[in-house]
């Protein structure tokens, strides 16, 4: 079942008088439960495509459907709502809220969804246990290693039970061991929860985890991993 559908999406950035075509007529479909890698060199459009799929940005032309909604037509608040309910994010630089503890960072999406205290406690405890950080729940980001921070970010991305987690170079700032641990956790949670993961990477070791590889170059999809590139 398709949870994200991108049709002929183009994204053009204007910087001064110059024009940069980050995406050029991209079409793509992501199904529930997928563990997909978006691969390609820097500047190939991976991050831009993730941003469109994650409702962080709108395409210049074309259409993006998330969970059956044409989010290209959504206003900022509607996009915020769909991000809050359906999408989880993991960023290259961990992107935790610096003033909140690990527990509070994971709890944040649940607070945004107005979920009860008892549910939040239970859910956060489960997620932190899943990423092996139960003993670090009261630590703030600056008291944790990069690997631990990224595991908190993974727990947070899954907190509100999204249909898809979008990860932009999730291991780029981790050493090999921590990168591998993060990927193992993501793969385990993908299998346990059925949440789809789409992650941008150019690390061959990370690509090896994916059950689908989407190859990009110069804002186009060269191979969508379904043999229909």
């Amino acid at each position, binding site marked *: 079942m398709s949870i994200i559908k991108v049709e002929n999406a183009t994204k053009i950035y204007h910087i001064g008088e110059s024009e940069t075509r980050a995406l050029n007529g991209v079409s793509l479909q992501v199904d529930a439960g997928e563990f997909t890698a978006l691969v390609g060199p820097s500047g190939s459009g991976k991050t831009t495509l993730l941003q469109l799929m994650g409702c962080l940005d709108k395409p210049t032309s074309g259409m993006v459907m998330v969970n059956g909604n044409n989010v290209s037509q959504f206003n900022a608040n509607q996009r915020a709502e769909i991000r809050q*309910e359906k999408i989880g994010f993991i960023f290259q630089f961990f992107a935790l809220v610096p003033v909140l503890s690990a527990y509070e960072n994971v709890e944040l999406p649940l607070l945004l969804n107005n979920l009860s205290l008892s549910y939040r406690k239970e859910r956060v405890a489960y997620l932190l246990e899943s990423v092996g950080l139960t003993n670090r729940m009261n630590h703030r980001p600056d008291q944790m290693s990069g690997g631990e921070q990224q595991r908190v970010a993974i727990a947070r991305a899954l907190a509100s039970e999204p249909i898809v987690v979008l990860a932009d170079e999730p291991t780029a700032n981790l050493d090999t061991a921590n990168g591998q641990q993060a990927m193992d956790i993501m793969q385990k949670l993908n299998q346990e929860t059925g949440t789809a993961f789409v992650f941008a990477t150019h690390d061959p070791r990370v690509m090896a985890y994916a059950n689908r590889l989407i190859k990009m170059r110069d804002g186009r999809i060269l191979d969508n991993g379904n043999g229909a590139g």
Partner: protein
Amino acid sequence: MAFKTFWIMGYRDLVRNRRRTILTLVAITLGLTLSIFMSGLIGGVMESSLRDSIRLTTGHIQLRAESYEEIKVSLLRRDLLDEPDALAVQAEMLPEVQVASPILWASGVLGTIRESTAIRINGIDPASSLHDPLRESLAAGEFLTNDGRREIMIGQLLAREMDLEVGDRVFLAVGNPDGAPEEGVFTIVGLVNSGFPGLDNTNVFLNLSQAQNITHVGNRASTVRILLHQLDDTAAATSALEIPGVAVLGWQELHEVLLTALETGQIFYDFLYAIIFLVVAVIIANTLLMSVFERTREMGILAALGMKGRQIMTMFLLEAAILGLIGSVFGAILGSILVYYFSITGIYIGEGSASAVEGMAIGTSMFTALNPADILSLSLWMMIVILLVSLYPAWYAARMEPVEALHAL
């Protein structure tokens, strides 16, 4: 989203930037302290000026002949009250009235063998408690008596200027109602130091009957001065004292100059408050804008998590509210302590700055007045100003596009 989390994030962000937060709090605290102190000082000076002017120079109510003009200090029969003692008795029958007593005013010249100077003569009944404040101001000698001796009491400043002391003899010259000069020799029995140079260097005090004798006005008087138990009773007492042919003047009319000055001054003081608040507002806006710029990445993360613009705005406004609340509480406490302290000790300004111009007496010390309503109102205004100026940085943060904010990563 739980409000508590906004508070936690706002509070922790303030703690994270401790130095900036402390400097901003100092600005708010000092701004409010200064405003409260100014307000207390202005209020105190005005209040004590009015109270002392009423106590020493005008009373709460005065009865005068309808044609009497204070500035002319007329001794003409038509300008004086015919039966002042009867009017005083009538006034004292009112429950609101504490004391009433006739006074005769005249312009004259006080002289010695060496020099002479223009003065204002006050013919008073020494036995009346109306003049207790004057009695309390006695710096040397004794108060006037009723035994008919030719006694005079003069201001200490006047005595100093004319090199006079208790026991010295002076002559007093005054024009009678027919325009003919009258003179008398008097002995100084007491020196008055009321603390108001305007009163102490131009006024002399005689027994009322002595003043009436030298001016040939019979038993007439310029006014019957009335002191009430309560300032608030003025309207009731004024309407109860409606007597044909007699003008009844309340303290508001007697202090028209002071009240006009107060009204005009208030605009100036409000302008000063506005400047102080504006400076604090700029500092707050700067602090929050810096905070927004530093946390662009965080805004992007929060937006990615689904936080809406208005929630981000609320978060920043709460941060400003925390700053404003803490600063205002400190400012209100510090301001109140200062105002309270100077309401007891006063601020000495010296004789050069003191005055007792028409209707407005400022002593050698200025006392502040603690007015909780003013403190509350200024603190609330400070909070309102802080929240208003915080709208811009909060709005700036709220309208950031998530993608642009995340590019700050």
